[in-house]
């Protein structure tokens, strides 16, 4: 499974070299948990993500491919993760709508050693240009993540919910 993630990540990295326009994106997000064990807002579960998105066109339709680094707090501890995301761009008047699907892998920071984390997410983002080459947007996405080895310490090691936040493009 891990090998598949790494493989996808390498494909995304190599794709970035081939295709056209590049955007630097930062985002801040928070969670609304869907976990059976506890539903509700977890404002303390927040994150910061930086990424590079590349635009490309297939049959006159606009898509993007991106890689990113996320750091933040999840339901268990501090974490950091790399991720790859793919999506479709749709222009609606002055707004830019993105339909996104992505996957991430990383670590929850524990002693004596970090615990492996993987996740998938999918959602939408809407953004508007505010200055030349600068955009501000809002996104909401369903996110699932799993910390497999945390199962030996806890009965709750899989989490899902809505992840929402603000993003800025430079």
């Amino acid at each position: 499974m891990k090998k598949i993630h790494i493989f996808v990540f390498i494909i995304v990295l190599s794709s970035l070299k081939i295709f056209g326009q590049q955007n630097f994106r930062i985002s801040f997000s928070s969670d609304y948990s869907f976990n059976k064990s506890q539903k509700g807002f977890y404002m303390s579960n927040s994150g910061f993500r930086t990424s590079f998105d590349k635009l490309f066109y297939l049959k006159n339709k606009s898509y993007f491919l991106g890689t990113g680094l996320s750091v933040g707090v999840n339901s268990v501890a501090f974490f950091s993760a790399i991720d790859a995301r793919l999506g479709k761009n749709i222009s609606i008047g002055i707004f830019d709508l993105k339909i996104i699907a992505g996957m991430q892998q990383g670590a929850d920071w524990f002693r004596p050693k970090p615990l492996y984390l993987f996740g998938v997410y999918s959602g939408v983002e809407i953004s508007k240009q505010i200055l030349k080459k600068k955009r501000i947007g809002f996104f909401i996405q369903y996110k699932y993540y799993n910390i497999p080895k945390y199962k030996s310490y806890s009965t709750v090691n899989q989490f899902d919910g809505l992840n929402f936040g603000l993003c800025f493009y430079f």
Partner: protein
Amino acid sequence: MKQFLLFSIIFLFLFSCSYLPENEKVEMNYVQEETNDYILIGEQENAYDTCFIFVPGGLVDPHVYMCWMNSFIEQNPNYCILLLKVPSNLAIIDQNKVLRVMKKFPNIKTWVIGGHSLGGVVASAVVSINPTYFSGLILMASWPTESSSLADWNGLVLSIYASNDGLATVDEIEANKQFLPSGIDIDTSYIFNKKENTTYYFEIIGGNHSGFGCYGLQKGDNQADITQKEQQKQFNSVISKFIKSI
């Protein structure tokens, strides 16, 4: 600038690792319910009058306390323990969580709150804001800050500390006695008589800071002269008697 910000965040995170339990398999025999917010430990679900709500120490995974909590429940099947889960394992970020979790258990009439290290500081702060909600406070290697002084609180306090503690030293315990009700030094054979506005001080000779959980030796702590099991056996016995006296 962007790179500096990114590296600063990564650097910060690398030094924010939480301690996991020392043993890879944690005994969950008495866990009645585990959620994102708490772990309910007891012999039966929802049939308790008295519960001990425990706030974990800073950057320590809550499961590290399961080792002695299981023994506590074995000895005290009529009580429950609510082990709090806190964001990023730092209770100070969300102190109100204690009351939010307590509200989920309206049938519990008597609450005793406690905490280890930074968790004890948070527990004291919660008591200072809501003094009538709690009948007792148990501090493990901890004390209240000046702003949340409990010197005039009518409840009972049990302060447990260890002679070899490298992070909450005996001198610091002495220096902060002014923020707690007047005190009595006790040993394991002490029989608690219910009094108001009293602090019972129990020193574990040879114990250390890390011995209040099962997560190995914490950075900055001293080596213990007794085993973790012995340390936990001592404070479990005193806590049991203290809670029974309330």
